[in-house]
């Protein structure tokens, strides 16, 4: 296969999902897809299922700098971006970089932060730069944000508005691991210590090269574009859905499908790639009608997909 760095990427997945993050294959893959297509990922699940562990393990094997934000209601934007501090020695203000100046940023419980802080974070995610006191600082590349949120908790939270959710390439849950896997996890105990000792498997250069390959080597046919558009259009005209997938959602879906094809070792995108990433990249962008809010967005999008003909010619 002429897809560069694919073996390394697969190795990352294998190592993480097979040795450390048991039963989290899907989440790991989606994280890598987000990494490869230059998006961010929102892990939405109840606490204690390994969201943070996943982020930590990823940062460990990817050889990227890691920053962590534990969101609380009093977290200020400057706590994320950093701030200027007067240096006595030098007699001037020096910009102290915040945790966002890292390749991999874990934003834990993002919905606990104030909207003001959220929006500062999301702006950084989208623009990949931070402007503090009139000076713009470029964020490092690659830049991957892994945000987590607890959907059940309601008190003292500021749920992300839909416009903010749209900034995340992928939104996925982790889910409980299968019974035997969970038993093994319980038996093995916490692996936080092991994760700390993880050595990087790939370099930043490798990741950048892989991203380039995804962007340039994987061919996206017009048929697939049509297929993606049909999905997007179907969500817009669906009676249960108030507002469907945005154009950005369509772009993200195509990018994610490319990354999926890359991981599968194909130089072209097939409808199955789209299908595999459609729900993680699309479901969280849907805004349901008031009377259908109780519906599961992922299931709804899955049902929409089942009614769309796959282009086979």
């Amino acid at each position: 296969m002429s897809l560069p760095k694919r073996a390394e990427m697969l190795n990352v997945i294998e190592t993480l999902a097979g040795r450390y993050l048991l039963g989290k294959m899907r989440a790991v893959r989606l994280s890598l897809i987000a990494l490869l297509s230059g998006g961010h990922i929102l892990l939405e699940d109840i606490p204690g299922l390994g969201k943070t562990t996943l982020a930590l393990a990823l940062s460990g094997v990817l050889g990227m700098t890691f920053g962590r934000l534990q969101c609380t209601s009093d977290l200020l934007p400057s706590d994320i971006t950093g701030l200027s501090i007067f240096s006595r020695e030098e007699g001037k203000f020096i910009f102290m970089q915040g945790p966002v100046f890292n390749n991999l940023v874990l934003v834990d419980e993002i919905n606990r932060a104030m909207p003001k802080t959220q929006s500062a974070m999301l702006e950084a995610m989208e623009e990949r730069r931070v402007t503090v006191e009139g000076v713009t600082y470029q964020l490092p590349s690659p830049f991957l944000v892994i945000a987590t949120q607890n959907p059940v908790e309601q008190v003292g939270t500021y749920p992300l508005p839909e416009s903010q959710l749209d900034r995340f390439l992928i939104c996925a849950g982790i889910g409980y691991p299968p019974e035997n896997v969970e038993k093994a996890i319980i038996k093995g105990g916490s692996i936080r210590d092991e994760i700390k000792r993880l050595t990087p498997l790939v370099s930043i250069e490798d990741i950048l090269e892989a991203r380039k390959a995804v962007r340039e080597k994987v061919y996206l046919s017009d048929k697939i574009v049509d297929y993606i558009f049909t999905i997007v259009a179907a969500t817009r005209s669906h009676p249960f859905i108030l507002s469907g997938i945005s154009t950005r959602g369509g772009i993200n879906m195509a990018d994610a499908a490319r990354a999926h094809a890359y991981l599968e070792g194909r130089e072209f995108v097939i409808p199955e790639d789209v299908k595999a990433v459609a729900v993680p990249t699309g479901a969280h962008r849907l805004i349901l009608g008031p009377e259908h809010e109780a519906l599961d967005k992922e299931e709804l999008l899955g049902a929409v997909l089942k009614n769309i003909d796959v282009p086979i010619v």
Partner: protein
Amino acid sequence: MVSVRAVLDLLACVIALLGAAPLFLYLDRPPQLLFLLALVAAFFIERKVVRPLSGFLPTAISGAFFIFYALQFSRDNLAQPAVNILVILLAVRLVCERAPRNYLQVCALSLFSLAASSLFSLSASFIVYLALLILCIAASLVLLTFFTVDRDASLTLGGLRRVVATAAAMLAASLPLMLLFFLVMPRPQFPLWDLRATAADKVAGFSDRVNPGASSQVRDLRTPVLRAEGERLPQARLYWRGIVLNTLRERAWVRTEVTERHNVGSGGGAPVRQTVFPEPSANNYLIVFDVPVSVSGPRLRQDPDLVFSRRRGGGGRIRYETVSSLTDSIRVSGEIDRGFYLRIPDGLSPRILSLGRRIAEQGGSDRERLSLLEDHFASTGFRYSMRDLPGSADPIDEFLFEKKAGNCEFFASSFALLLRVSGVPSRLVAGYYGGDYNDLGGYYLVTEDMAHVWVEVYLQGSGWVRRDPSSFAVNFAGARGRGSVGLYHRLRMLSDSFNYYWNLAVITYDLDKQIRVFNKANSAVRKLSLPFWEKEFSLSLSAAVLATAAWYFIRRRRRGSREERIVRRFIRRLGRKYPREPISPSTGLNELADRFDEPAVRKFVEVYSGAVYRDRRLTDGEIAMLNGLLKRI
């Protein structure tokens, strides 16, 4: 490249010719000439030597002829003026300028002309003309669609061939319909308009009056008289009985109504069964194989002297079944009216009278007198001749004692006359002698030139005995017993059997036959209890027909690219192999490969999607490979 206009011009001439040719002989002289002239003119117009008529002139010519012939219309003369007008209109259209309207008119008028020809002749060649005409008209209609769009359109030879193929396909498609309509179209029991009776040919051979010497020459016509289906019989016994002439009035033998009421019967002999299809003729007498025993057919009349006739005249073809006896005598129970059959006119020549009396004196009985007369005929050395016949005031006398040459009328009437003079009851029978056996159709063809007259002599104890005095002619075998062979004869027989079947199947297809066909079909449907294998056969046949239709529609609907066809085949194949797992259109190919974990399926999907999702056409090698993989699924 061929100019459409040139082809249309040629087709117009051919169409006009096909339409008018069957009618040509029945036309008056001026339309005949005008039509030929128009054909020649059309040729020169096409060569651009002459300019076509345009404007008011053609309408004026047509109008003038129309008025002229319209004045000739009468109740008895309907067809003749009509066909003349038709052909003149056709001729005028041929020399008119070439507009689509004129081409269409030529087509229509030709069809009418051909249809009109059936008023005069019911020959089987009609179907040939019709088929050719429809072919040509279909071709010109197709070409006309080009012509109306572009007057100077031209076609390649291949295109022309396609046009002809289209026309042929139209003809082929219309044939089954024609057959169906022929079978089911309602038809009356009698012809609606019987023009045949007025237009019938003048009978030249057979007539109900034998008048030797009336003309010095007899025409030799090969027109068919009848066709009799039956087995082959000895050539020398082929006497076809028509009419009995029992009275000699002046010099002509005529028929007077027979009043005698006694039973007659054939004198034994092997029975001969025949089905006779006579050609339409002006007289009502039915020709039957001598000696008839019984005749069955519609509305028949039988005279005691075994002359059969139709009660009502009228055209139309009929058929009748006859049973005859292969013998030469008619047995009579009871006594005949001797005086009636001995009546002779006054003013016979002394030579005839003396010859008759001499025979009467020498012979003691009727039988002896007959043999004496036969001896006289045999020893005199008469010659059979069709030309230079005796034609003086007393032709019988001239025949007997001077020329000693004549046709059957002279032989028979002189023989019968001499018998009557010598006191032996006798009469003339007019009919036909001979017949060409058609091995193909298994029937005898009797033509007008076989018309013949012979004598029946009444002998006590034997009844009426047939005697053919012509057979005493020294050259009789050569003159009458022609054994025609050779290619021409065989071709004639072939075309005649074609005509025969045409009459059998088409011309005589009337209401009776129609009802019979429907009844047969009805009972066949009711009795439809096929044996097992036949049921299976018909089931599979109808399944095959359905499948063909379905296949055709699927192909029409699915006529896509090669990729489309092959992937549809792939999905159909999987659907057939795994009928329990329906394949929804929202399932991707890779999902199928995962679902049906088969190496061939996987390989197919890999190769196929590798091309299709890269927006690349499949190469020929890939197509072959995929087809190979499809076979393994």
